[in-house]
């Protein structure tokens, strides 16, 4: 059987979506409460890594294909740069040219909100890719070692 035991798989199916929602909350409210794009992105990546550990890499890549992860990784970095360049229209790189909105509301603080989201996509997908690369590397020997330990 691929992946871990049935108990782990069931709990993973139940929990993974909630972890993603919590990560999205940490990202979206990063400018209001503790957290931010980096921490939220890592939490979202952890949900996908949990799926990969429990179900194996096919299931994880079915939910987030490798090409899509690459695109999100590069796209997040590109979005970060583009938002930075938008500030040039006001005079300086990374100048906060967006409307600041109403204080303590979700849509406030100008470019900090989109920058948080860009960072989250970038960090989440890149850490997922790093783990996927490490997990695919010599998977065979890992499994055989575990079987040796158990026998």
């Amino acid at each position: 059987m691929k992946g871990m035991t049935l108990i782990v798989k069931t709990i993973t199916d139940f929990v993974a979506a909630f972890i993603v929602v919590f990560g999205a909350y940490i990202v979206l409210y990063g400018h209001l409460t503790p957290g931010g794009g980096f921490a939220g992105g890592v939490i979202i990546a952890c949900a996908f890594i949990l799926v990969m550990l429990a179900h194996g890499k096919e299931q994880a890549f079915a939910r987030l294909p490798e090409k899509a992860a690459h695109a999100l990784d590069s796209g997040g970095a590109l979005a970060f740069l583009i938002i930075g360049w938008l500030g040039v229209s006001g005079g300086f790189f990374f100048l906060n040219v967006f409307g600041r909105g109403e204080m303590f509301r979700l849509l406030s603080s100008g470019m900090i909100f989109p920058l948080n989201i860009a960072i989250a996509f970038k960090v989440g997908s890149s850490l997922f890719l790093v783990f996927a690369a490490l997990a695919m590397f010599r998977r065979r020997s890992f499994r055989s070692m575990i079987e040796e330990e158990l026998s």
Partner: protein
Amino acid sequence: MENIAPQLYTLLVFMVIGSVVAVETKNLLSAVISVSAVGFALSVAFLFMGAPDIAITQLVVEILVLIILIRGTILLDNTSVETHRDTLAVVTSLIFFGLLLGFGAMIFGSKGFPEFGEPLMRVSRVYVQTGLPATYAANIVTSVILDFRAYDTLGEATVLFASVLGALALLRKDGKVKGEGVAAA
């Protein structure tokens, strides 16, 4: 502000013990877990010092690094280190540690160095005073890392990007001769 020194000293002692165990243990898995214990204690220390942003990030990254390191450790064929340490390496590291302590005492002990936090606090005072009115971000940490110091965050994102490129280039399967990676690991 209440006195948090006892809690911090307890955590510091725990972290020092964890680090010594991580360096001295023969089993790589135990070393990885000791390093993670140090990281979790650091996260709790950040909470005590009133920095929830850093505590969250530290905790989450620590979990991820623990998972990655355990997989990396078990992947290696030899998870325990039997050979004794090179005497030359021990002597060299001791000498360099002594040099570090000596130069540190010279710099921080003399009057040539400014008071702790004096020139830095001038910058951060501006951040604290103008953070909310200038950016309208209620979380001041975010207003610093994504507005005042967005350049730093751009550099951090670049480092992550380079690390992904490096990991995928080193561990890729396609275009690699069979057995090439095994010898390197």
